[in-house]
């Protein structure tokens, strides 16, 4: 079966306040996509990033990662992700850079272009609902992701540094 060219991975814990914004972003994006777009993009929800997810990146043209970011101003930040070895390689949960490093070593080539969408998030209490400010920031992030799927998202270009949405 042919792999869809685009992949969106969002992660977080739906029971830990604003950590849920990744999965909620994915829910909203799924609702906003029509059949034509869904034929071109896979949407994956995860609790955290694991090494075998490097296999999910194989054959993709572009990949979008989305996670709660306690440092991100509202509504979001964008960052090009480069493969890199960091402390997360010694833990159960990989950073985006470490995931790409696993990809590079496994496949002996550079991973596809990967953009990290840092979603505005501030409060992470167990059992707490998503904060109003984090929820309010989601529509803008979804709009940006729709443009990313269409290939004309502002701020999504190789070599850019982190910028605010």
């Amino acid at each position, binding site marked *: 079966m042919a792999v869809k060219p685009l992949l969106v991975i969002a992660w977080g814990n*739906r029971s830990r306040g604003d*950590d849920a914004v990744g999965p909620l972003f994915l829910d909203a994006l799924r609702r906003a996509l029509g059949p034509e777009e869904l034929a071109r993009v896979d949407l994956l*929800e995860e609790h955290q990033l694991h090494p*075998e997810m490097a296999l999910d990146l194989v054959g993709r043209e572009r990949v979008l990662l989305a996670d709660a970011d306690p440092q991100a101003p509202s509504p979001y930040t964008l960052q090009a992700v480069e493969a890199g070895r*960091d*402390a997360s390689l010694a833990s*159960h949960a990989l950073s985006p850079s470490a995931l790409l*490093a696993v990809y590079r070593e496994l496949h002996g080539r550079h991973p596809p272009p990967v953009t990290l969408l840092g979603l505005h998030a501030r409060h992470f209490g*167990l059992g707490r609902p998503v904060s109003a400010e984090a929820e309010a920031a989601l529509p803008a992030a979804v709009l940006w992701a729709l443009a990313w799927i269409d290939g004309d998202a502002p701020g999504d270009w190789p070599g850019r540094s982190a910028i605010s949405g």
Partner: protein
Amino acid sequence: MTSLETAANPEGLRRVAIDPLTRVEGHGKVTLLLDEHDRVQQARLHIVEFRGFEQFICGRPYWEVPVMVQRLCGICPVSHHLAASKALDQVVGAARVPPSADKLRRLMHYGQVMQSHALHFFHLASPDLLFGFDADPARRHIVAVAEAHPDIARKGIALRKYGQEVIRATAGKRIHGTGSVPGGMNRHLSDADHALLLADAARMVEWAEDAVALVKRLHAADPVRHERFGEVPAKMLSLVRPGDGALELYDGVVRVRDEDGRILLDDQDPCAYLDLIEEEVKPWSYMKFPYLRTLGPAYGWYRVGPLARVQNCSVIDTPRAERERREFLDAGHGRPIHAALATHWARMIEMLHAMEVIAALLHDADLRHGPLTATGPRAGEGIGVIEAPRGTLIHHYRVGDDDLVTMCNLIVSTTHNNQAMNEAVRAVARECFDGRALTEGLLNQIEVAIRAYDPCLSCATHALGSMPLQLDLVGADGSRRGTLVRHGDGRFERED
């Protein structure tokens, strides 16, 4: 009281804290207290954060619980999913779930065990074993393994991926699935997923067997270290199959052996766990210390998980894993094996067993046909016990007439192993710490001993997320000699 757990005069000791433990889910801290002669007087594994997940569950409708408890942990969510389902089977009156549901749950569970064991061994443990404890820390991770041993890394990641696919196919989602429900399952295995899993099953069995062979080669290359490092004689507790005492990870009766391998308890009903074990609270740790009631806290502590299970059972009912179990037992020359690194060998035997079980189950037509749920007289209480990848996992709930949970008690594998891990820290501290040089190699040796248990401190403390952690050095006169902070993003900061 264990000799190195509590010093006679702690106020006069120098304190060395190792913090955090890398390659451990959640966070922990190790403290070594030294006397004026720089000898280790106290050694403790601390847990530094506590959040009440049980309280979070109370007040929720019982049917939500098998999904909600998966958010405890990013590593073993399926174990919580199934333990909660088993407990709530009793609440909905399903004394036995239908054969299709039982087999689908087993398939899901063995997929979980397989992927978790693969993650631990290949991603977290193999760098230590392949490169050595004293290797450059920058090389001790899966990317370096992929560089130096690409075939091992590829197989490890493929095994893990296969286990995740088993979970997706049975639970309905890659994470936090809804496949298991109180009273049974809500879906069969689809024809497409059946074909997908069956296509790779034989190859995965071969690769799992290769993993056992790899552990044996590593053992043979450094037998003294593998047989002695972090050796802690301990009682062994696990579920076994009723009747023949076979290795049983999904459902069974409790068996306990002593340090010499003699059976102390057998055929115990796991639902009577409160009669069997008690938990001791110690003022210096948020994590409790379970022990066998009949023996008391000083002598009743025990080990759970692969090293305990492989030696506690009488047989493994799949041929390749049974052959490996016998070879493993032979390495003990008639005595139980209690060395920390032997856990990895036992873990790979279990991974092979899990893959053999999966391959056999895929030929069972009940996975794709037959009734999925059962009901009966409603009850107000349920207890589910399962052998999670790291060891025995207990879920206990009481549910009110309004269907809301009124009581939740979770005893996770890492909590069962609390005393055994502390003993392992002490064993390594006695053997390896000279009282002077706090080297990366020493820190890693202590961590290697703890990591062998694959502790999941997120589960044990019911804590989630990352936090900054610090290493304090306090002199015998009580003055702070320095602080090393590792932030949540991995950055180090030193204050002298």
